[in-house]
């Protein structure tokens, strides 16, 4: 290394201070932190909308909000949680962890990285701002089905452009991740030695690149249908509203794997650490993730079994959907086999990870039930669907994100978090989320439709239980914020390795890692992962 480059590095270590450090940041750790903080804020904004929903559903009859506002709460809650909380949290983790996991100095395209983050606040200003304008926010459901969504008032163009921005942001993030992993691995870090979190993110990034532009196209068609006289989805002009559902779910199904695959990666990092055993079936995990991703493009119509598909179509999409259970089963099996005869300890990350494996599997099974065409006609658009996707997204994706936060917080801040409080947070979350969502299965099977502000009295008891669980879950997340702030401010010093069973490059760096890590590429050997 020449003296010139060393001087450059010295220069770089004088990081900008104050607001400029964040506004103009090209540092993967700072951008990762911003993503994570943003995701947490959005988690609480979306969460408070969920509180409005559960308060309204606490008793039958209309209590607190009018139906239009209720509908916009349902719609915006979904958009905020999907595009504002879970996806940015995933990208934030990728930013923070991928370079230090593969031994790279930073992300491949640092300026684009900055841009893809700073688009987000503007996109959500557009989306959330609609709640305060004439006619209120979008209220046609996050799936934006025409012709209903075309009846949205002034909020409509804001909704469309917010979705465009979010798409652009996540595609830029995806390109950056793939470019980093393909071009900046340390010597010896072969593809089949990549930590599983990196693998799942590479595959997620491909899903993003292949599916997000299709959503952008679909919402652009909505926009031109409303304002420029096209008839893509307008039957009066020879279009077809069902076409929108096909295009939307061609994006929408890969999207659900975009939300969950990074969670799979997180769990695959955490379980070996606390079971003190290498991950069981590493290669099969990689192939299972890839096959889930590929299959996700061939199952979209299982979201629309009731629109009147021909019987061959219904059968094809039913069988293709069943097929996804196979690689997913492989993953669950591997996680359990990793724990088998391991020397397990149960710190907060591990508790969340084990809860993930159990509760995600429950959500997976209810998904299988929904995937069976004939019975889907009963479950379609009921609370059974709501219970299903909250089991995979809340007790699935969000639990994995919580696990990752506890797992890596000591690495990020240099301090250990308060383990006792974290365990209380876990138990409150685990119990409350089940009280919240399990009764919704029964509500759905009994026929309660989703997206309604009022319901028949026979649904009252389960709704009250569900709402109580909801409030408990909401309040207990404040504890998480307290734990994070407490940890950032100080505590017991964390070692480089943090966890006794932690293996991999990121644990060879100090806690917190230096502002620029791996300026000299480390040498990666097989022994790095040995127990």
């Amino acid at each position, binding site marked *: 290394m020449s003296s010139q480059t060393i001087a450059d590095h010295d220069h770089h270590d004088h990081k900008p201070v104050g607001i400029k450090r964040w506004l103009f940041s090209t540092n993967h750790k700072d951008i990762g932190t911003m993503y994570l903080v943003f995701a947490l804020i959005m988690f609480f904004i979306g969460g408070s909308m969920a509180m409005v929903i559960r308060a309204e559903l606490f008793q039958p009859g209309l209590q607190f909000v009018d139906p239009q506002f209720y509908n916009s709460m349902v719609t915006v809650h979904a958009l905020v949680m999907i595009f504002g909380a879970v996806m940015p949290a995933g990208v934030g983790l990728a930013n923070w962890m991928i370079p230090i996991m593969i031994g790279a100095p930073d992300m491949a395209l640092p300026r684009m990285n900055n841009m893809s983050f700073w688009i987000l606040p503007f996109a959500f200003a557009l989306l959330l701002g609609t709640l305060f304008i004439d006619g209120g926010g979008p209220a046609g459901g996050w799936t934006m089905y025409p012709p209903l969504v075309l009846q949205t008032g002034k909020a409509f163009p804001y909704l469309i452009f917010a979705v465009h921005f979010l798409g652009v942001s996540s595609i830029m993030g995806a390109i950056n991740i793939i470019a980093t992993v393909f071009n900046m691995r340390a010597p010896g870090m072969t593809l089949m030695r990549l930590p599983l979190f990196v693998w799942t993110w590479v595959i997620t990034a491909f899903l993003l690149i292949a599916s997000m532009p299709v959503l952008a196209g679909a919402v652009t*068609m909505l926009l031109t249908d409303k304002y420029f006289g096209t*008839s893509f989805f307008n039957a009066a002009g020879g279009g077809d509203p069902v076409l929108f559902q096909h295009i939307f779910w061609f994006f929408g199904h890969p999207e659900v794997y975009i939300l969950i695959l990074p969670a799979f990666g997180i769990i695959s990092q955490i379980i070996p650490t606390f079971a003190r055993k290498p991950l069981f079936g590493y290669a099969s995990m990689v192939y299972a993730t890839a096959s889930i991703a590929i299959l996700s493009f061939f199952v979209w119509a299982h979201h629309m079994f009731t629109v009147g598909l021909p019987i061959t179509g219904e059968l094809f999409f039913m069988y293709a959907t069943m097929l996804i259970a196979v690689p997913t089963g492989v993953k669950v099996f591997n996680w359990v086999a990793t724990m088998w005869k391991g020397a397990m300890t149960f710190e907060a990350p591990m508790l969340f990870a084990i809860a993930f494996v159990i509760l995600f599997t429950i959500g997976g099974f209810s998904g299988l039930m929904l995937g069976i065409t004939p019975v889907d006609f009963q479950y379609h658009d009921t609370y059974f669907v709501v219970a299903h996707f909250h089991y995979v997204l809340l007790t699935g994706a969000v639990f994995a994100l919580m696990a990752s936060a506890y797992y890596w917080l000591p690495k990020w801040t240099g301090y250990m978090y308060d383990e006792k409080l974290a365990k209380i947070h876990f138990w409150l979350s685990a119990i409350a989320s089940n009280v919240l969502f399990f009764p919704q299965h029964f509500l759905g099977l009994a026929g309660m439709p989703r997206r309604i502000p009022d319901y028949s009295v026979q649904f009252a008891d389960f709704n009250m239980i569900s709402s109580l669980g909801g409030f408990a879950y909401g309040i207990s997340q404040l504890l998480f914020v307290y734990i994070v702030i407490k940890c950032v401010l100080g505590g017991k010093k964390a070692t480089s390795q943090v966890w006794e069973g932690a293996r991999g490059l990121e644990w060879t760096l100090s806690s917190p890692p230096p502002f620029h890590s791996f300026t000299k590429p480390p040498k990666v050997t097989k022994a790095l992962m040995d127990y």
Partner: protein
Amino acid sequence: MTKVGGIKRTAVILTTVTLLMFGFGYALVPLYDVFCEVTGLNGKTGRISNAEASKLVVDNQRFITIQFDSNINGNLAWKLKADQNILKVNPGKFYVATYTVENMINEEIVGQAIPSVSPQIASLYFKKSDCFCFRNQVLKPGEKKKLTVRFEVDKDIPKDVESLTLSYTFFRALKDNKKAS
């Protein structure tokens, strides 16, 4: 080990893929139409030319019941009624059915009808040689008009289909819509 040229290449390739996928979203529109036409999905009906029509063989043994249905979409102040509720037809023979449409308000309106045939498996065997659908119909205030559809049911129609429904929905034509608002 950072490969600088590699980063640029990866970024260019991935951006291209992004643009292609955006195009693919739009390509799904014509693909969907072709798919519907081939499979008869969505109630797309078959067409028959005069040359083909002259070669038809009539199957006098079989009767199929055609039910006629009519709808008006939301913001159109018209009345549409089939002049016959049902018709029993022999496959391979041409029939003419009529609908009466009436403008109920004091304003000239342009409308357009969209057809649909169910069950889906039968829709391609329902072949029209002449139809008032997909054409702009102008009705003066209070005007009444007879609209005709000429069709035959193909003799290859699956054996288990005993009846099918022909449905028309009138929409306000898009051009007219704009004028009105």
